[in-house]
């Protein structure tokens, strides 16, 4: 890319930054940057987890094991609050979501131009480094959670019972058609809001970083650092919200019919 200062053409600068690195078209369109960074982060987390898991010290834990134990305790407390019965999947699910979302969001804190510029030098002209600013990532997670909820609903209530819950809730059997529509909307809104909340927050966050980057260089440090500090809160909060809502949805799905 040969370009003058970014401020010469702000629209082009921003849209360039928001353009993912894509391969293929139609169904086989693959956002290489999204997959690369999310899988990279997942691999790093898996590698560390594997190492910690292989060298567990029961006596006095140290280093990374301490950090992970604290996180596990934290997630486990939330799960125990939401679940009357023990559940084997939701704990690791929550922990994974928290770690993954947090670290993918944290890519936001890398200066917006650093990695794209570096990629530009080796001939990759488009790069989005924050996987959670790609709705594919957030919807992938929320849809899997949605499927898990359906699985638990059917497992606990039975197929018929699950269908019945659509008809009788919330107004009783006599308003079955309205109930059906309302419950359907309610159920579909869960994964949709889950995915869009995270995507929206991260996308706008990234957009603000880009807008700050358009300011003259002598103004950038102040709003840039303020927004970055604020964003530390946002990325943690978003990861936490995603995890808590996941635990909530799964616990609602695995409740006995009411």
């Amino acid at each position, binding site marked *: 890319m040969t370009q003058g200062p970014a401020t010469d053409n702000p629209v082009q600068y921003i849209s360039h930054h928001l353009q993912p690195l894509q391969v293929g078209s139609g169904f086989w369109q693959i956002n290489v940057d999204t997959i690369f960074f999310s899988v990279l982060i997942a691999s790093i987390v898996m590698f560390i987890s594997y190492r910690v898991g292989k060298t567990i010290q029961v006596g006095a834990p140290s280093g990374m094991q301490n950090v992970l134990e604290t996180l596990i305790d934290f997630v486990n407390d939330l799960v125990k609050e939401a679940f009357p019965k023990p559940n084997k999947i939701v704990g690791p*699910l929550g922990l994974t979501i928290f770690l993954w979302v947090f670290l993918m969001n944290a890519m936001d804190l890398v200066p917006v131009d650093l990695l794209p510029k570096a990629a530009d030098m080796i001939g990759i002209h488009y790069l989005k480094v924050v996987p959670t600013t790609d709705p*594919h990532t957030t919807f992938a997670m929320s849809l899997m959670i949605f499927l898990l909820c359906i699985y638990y609903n059917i497992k606990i209530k039975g197929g018929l019972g699950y269908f019945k819950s659509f008809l009788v809730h919330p107004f009783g059997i006599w308003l079955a058609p309205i109930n059906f529509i309302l419950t359907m909307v309610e159920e579909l809104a869960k994964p949709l809001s889950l995915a869009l909340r995270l995507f929206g927050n991260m996308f706008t966050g990234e957009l603000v970083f880009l807008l700050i980057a358009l300011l003259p260089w002598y103004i950038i440090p102040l709003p840039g650092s303020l927004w970055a500090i604020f964003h530390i809160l946002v990325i943690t909060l978003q990861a936490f919200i995603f995890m808590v809502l996941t635990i909530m949805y799964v616990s609602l799905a695995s409740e006995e019919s009411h």
Partner: protein
Amino acid sequence: MNVTATLFGQMLTFVIFVWFIKAYLWEPLTKAMEDRSNKIADGLAAAEQGQQKIEQAKIEFTTRIDEAKSKASNIIGDAEQKSKLIVEEARNIAKEEASKIAKSSAQQLEQEINAAKEQLKEDVANLSIECAERVLAQEIDKKKHNKIIEEVINSD
């Protein structure tokens, strides 16, 4: 957003990720944490037990010491009594012995006195007889005295 392979790729990544974390981190680590909390609970219970044992041992210790003390004082008392008895007995025996000795010596003395008296008597008798014999030897008259002797012999 279009439904693309990216979405399914991310879904697959997510599933593998969750499975991996569950299998290699969550399960072993929660187990280790549980083990640890059990261990700590056991340790605390053992410590409490140990404390109780110490408490018991202290009580036993003091009672034993008390017992030993009372036993010792009993033994000392007994020994004192016994020694008194022994001394008393010895004193009695000595007294008896002394009185025996005194008695026997008195007896012996008496015997000796008696013997001396006897001896003295004999000596006196012998002396008087000798004196008498000598007196008689000068004055004896066979005829006169034969008559007396015959009379004594015949009177029996």
